């Protein structure tokens, strides 16, 4: 018969806990949801981001990419991904279930604008001048790529499908710029941060477009996680990693490629402007 002493049991228990839990914690990759709506499929940016976060978190990073915000938000809500880089609009749509992890800082602020753009030769000066034309949105759950223009129209008592002759969704801010630049559509609603970034990285694409109007400053698309999982160590680690992204070499390069200054914490109030637009939009609906 084997005799177990208290020390042996403790040691055994500790060993069992260590053997059973540690490999799971250590090997379970961190799933981060991304969408090309905001972040284009730039292999280098994604690679750098993955490396920087993996180094910070100490686990492999699995980047789960989907075409739409709706799909990524769904993955986040069902737990298939641990966190996701979303937009303020889907965050606010699921504000009760989601929490903010970090918000990127661009030009010193966690804010950005929505741009209404048209072809370079177009003589439109404001949104009303685009009536009857074709218009490109990026995603129906995008703040800058849909909600801003839709709420502006709602404030005029109009709906996009009635105001424009035809609207299309490109599921990417860069695609909106391409659609307007190539003449596929007359105008488009695009993330101001993306347009400005493209103006530096791909000036040939943006120089065939012009910004007709800019929205007010709104909360930058945040990294979110499920509120009920915010206490988890890996989410805390993610927050630390994001906030300290500029401290690591890989993170610094990734931020440089994204033309971001860094990451910061934020409260839901940052997105009050979007909140107001949602209300205006839904009031008409």
């Amino acid at each position: 018969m084997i005799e177990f002493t208290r020390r042996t049991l403790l040691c055994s228990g500790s060993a069992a806990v260590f053997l059973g839990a540690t490999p799971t914690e250590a090997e379970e990759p961190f799933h981060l949801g991304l969408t090309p709506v905001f972040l284009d499929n730039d292999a280098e940016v994604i690679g750098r981001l993955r490396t920087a976060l993996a180094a910070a978190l100490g686990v492999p990073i699995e980047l789960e990419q989907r075409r739409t915000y709706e799909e990524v938000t769904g993955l986040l809500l069902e737990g298939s991904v641990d966190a996701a880089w979303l937009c303020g609009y889907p965050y606010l749509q699921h504000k009760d279930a989601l929490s903010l992890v970090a918000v990127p800082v661009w030009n010193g602020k966690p804010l950005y604008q929505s741009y209404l753009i048209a072809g370079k030769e177009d003589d439109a000066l404001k949104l009303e001048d685009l009536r009857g034309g074709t218009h490109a949105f990026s995603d129906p759950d995008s703040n800058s790529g849909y909600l801003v223009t839709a709420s502006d129209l709602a404030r005029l008592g109009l709906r996009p499908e009635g105001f424009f002759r035809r609207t299309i969704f490109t599921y990417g801010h860069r695609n909106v710029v391409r659609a307007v630049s190539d003449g596929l559509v007359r105008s488009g609603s695009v993330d101001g941060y993306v347009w400005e970034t493209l103006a530096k990285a791909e000036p040939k694409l943006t120089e065939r477009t012009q910004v007709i109007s800019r929205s007010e400053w709104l909360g930058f698309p945040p990294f979110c996680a499920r509120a009920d999982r915010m206490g988890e160590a890996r989410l805390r680690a993610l927050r630390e990693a994001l906030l300290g992204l500029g401290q690591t070499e890989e993170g610094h390069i990734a931020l440089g490629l994204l033309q971001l200054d860094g990451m910061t914490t934020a409260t839901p109030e940052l997105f009050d402007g979007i909140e107001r637009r949602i209300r205006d939009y839904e009031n008409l609906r």
Partner: protein
Amino acid sequence: MEAIRRIPLSLRVPLLAAGLMILVGIIASRQVLSTLGQVQDARIRELAQLQVESLSVALGPHVLRDDIWEVYDTLERAAGETEGRRMVFTAVADEHGHVLAATDPVRAPLDSPISALTEGAQTPETLSVTGDAARVRLLAPLLYQGRAVGQIMTELDVADLVAERWRAGRLLLLGNALATGVLSILGYLAMRRMLMPIARLVRRMRETADAPEPIPESDLPRGDTEMTRLVRTYNAMTDAVVAKADTERRLAERERFVSLGRLSSSLAHEINNPLGGLLNAVDTVRQYADRPDVVRQSADILSRGLNHLRDVAQATLDQNRLDRSSAPLSFEDFEDLRLLVGPEISRQEQKLNWQVSASGEALSSFASAPLRQVSLNLLLNASAAAGTKGEVSLMVSEKPGVLCLSIGDSGDGLSDAARARLLSDAPVPPGGGVGLRLVHDLVKELNGSVSSERKESMTFVDVAVPIAPTEVSSPC
């Protein structure tokens, strides 16, 4: 056409060969270009079919969902990946024919009718690039899961294929021109060499002055070709020409002898005929030497007879050309004739009917010698034909513009040989007398005519000579 005929054979044949070569070259070039066109058509059809099928697979779901961006993005990517940018423009329409997206949205705006772009578009099955257009349009249904959900219109850049065909055409043209030129020159030289015997033959024939000269054996074309046979035939012909010339020369010589014989015979005849009368006159002089009137009459006869002999001699000297400038015909000439034939008539105890009813004026319009000769010959011939105790007649009459001499005899008529000599212009066969032929020739020279008829057991030879010498006489 006439100008072509004037071109020498040695140039015409090579030119013809060159023309045929050019014709063959053109046909061959057209065939090659046609085949090239077919190959290009097959290639472009296969490519277009593949492209349309690929696009259908890629675009089908997006078209079905009316996902314009995805359609556009797919077209963009497909256009960027097309080999050599063959597809320079593509537009996709929904099943109602409204454009969903195009690689050039400015050219084919969203929702515009695709029919505005499909003018002259071909189907994938009939796609052809044989024209000169650098771009061709293709319209195909967009099939997805077995049903047409839209249409694809694509514009293909076929400038390289057109250029390839032009390049092939130019190379063919150049090659054919070169080949034709070289072969034409070779053909010209070969033809010239082959036709050289003919040229030599022509030169020989042209240079021939009298008799053609044969081409020496050493210059004969080698082998038993048509040319060799032609030259041999030519040589045989030159031999034949020489032989013929020899024969003609011999015949001419013989003819000369025949003429000489005829002349001698005629001379003897003409001298012999009056001799009887002259000797008779001499006998009369001897017998009646004491009667001056008889002697004078006989002397006159002798004189006229000798004058006649002189005329005959003169005529003989002139051969066939009797002296037309001699004394005019008169009644005395016929009296002379009567005297001349008298002895022969008497000898054969023949009856002679003599009637000269023509006017002296009519008689005097003729020279005496030819008609005397004609009358004498015919009378002697009639006397010979009438035989012993036969009957001979001479009638000289005058019709308007015509002097008629009719000599008759009671003989059996003219033999065929005599008839031929007297009445026809046919050559006289060797042998036989020349008197009748002389009559024929003399009458012909006087533009007169000779005929013969048999009437009441008498044979008459009628001679009609026009009083106006240019007119051809009508028969008496």
